[in-house]
């Protein structure tokens, strides 16, 4: 699909403007100014950060809580809401 898109003529555009690519191919992580860093020794795995992340960027694999930096926009909600202050917002280089 992506090759077709390189030089799209009107005939290549899907009928009725159907978006056909997954947004997950688009990485919003580069919007970030501050990045959340989780202190694993403090984290109680309560998943509060997972609940409130607008970008589905907190990942829980059943063992640890991690940030998916490909998408995290650095809003800081997770750090603000973490009940044990396990998350710090660190300025991106």
């Amino acid at each position: 699909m992506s090759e077709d898109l390189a030089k799209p003529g009107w005939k290549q555009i899907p009928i009725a403007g159907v978006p056909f690519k997954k947004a997950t191919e688009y990485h919003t992580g580069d919007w970030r100014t501050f990045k959340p860093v989780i202190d694993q020794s403090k984290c109680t795995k309560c998943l509060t950060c997972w609940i409130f992340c607008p970008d589905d960027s907190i990942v829980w694999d059943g063992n640890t809580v991690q940030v998916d930096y490909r998408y995290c926009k650095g809003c800081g909600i997770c750090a603000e809401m973490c009940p044990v202050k396990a998350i710090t917002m660190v300025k991106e280089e």
Partner: protein
Amino acid sequence: MSWINLRELAKKRSLFTSGHRLCAGCAAGIIGRLVMHSVPDPKHVVVVHATGCWEVAGTIFPYTAWAVPWIHNAFENAAATASGVELAFKALKDKGVVKKVPDIIVFGGDGGTVDIGLQSLSGAIERGHNFLYVLYDNNAYMNTGIQRSGATPRYAWTTTSQVGKVIPGKLEARKPIANIIAAHGNAYVATASPAYWRDLMEKARKGIEYKGPAFIHAISPCCRGWRFPPNMTIRVAKLAVETCAFPLWEYDPETREYKLSPPSLAIAKNPKLKKPIEEYLKLQGRFAHLFKPEKREDLIARIQEDVDKEWNQLLELCGIT
């Protein structure tokens, strides 16, 4: 036991995926994830979107953040489109093409719901279509740049209710949209705040499972339009409930009864818990003119009066006096 088991639920990725382009800290993304995690069967759901910031940010061509069938039509007809989707699936089911009619969830902002789409929504509810309509209310037309809507509260700054010598922001009160929908009598109606996520998810599941129209009015703090830092979204959504600016309640169409939800019921039982509206206002730059250059006690008192009046009316509706 509730169906919500966080440790299991959090293993799943959202049906409204990462890579959407809502602003950092946008409550719509949180509401969307919570509602989509409440869908009983992810293989049988269709999402309908009214025009708005979320509709645009979720589907910037050629990308879509919706991992489910999704349709956008126009600003004024999201509920009419949902009616058509339901009838189309019913016809396909009668013909044996599909086995069941999917759950239909509509998302619309306050512009698309309180103002522009109100007549098509009212019609769809009156006809009794089976869908859940979720209003994410960010109190203005944010997509086009923060213009006042019928949901903008009194004295809020917007680009079309400017603050100056003549007026202190929007002069009019907001429309009581959830009460208007409840007045139809046949719909399950609830208000919700993403800060009370469990309450929101339970209401979303109830609305989806209700056989008939359901409507959830969710407050959706907007950091750009309300002028607060993006990390404060949930704090603002919580204060809205704690100050009773946005109380949480349900309307049951079967018994025709209003019922306060636990966070607001606690305040009704112990009025000391009700925080002054000032605490909600002062977090938001759209109300900054109420605090500087001089504190406008008169205007803040007027807003408090609005809040108290609506809260007392609600208590009466809920049979609490």
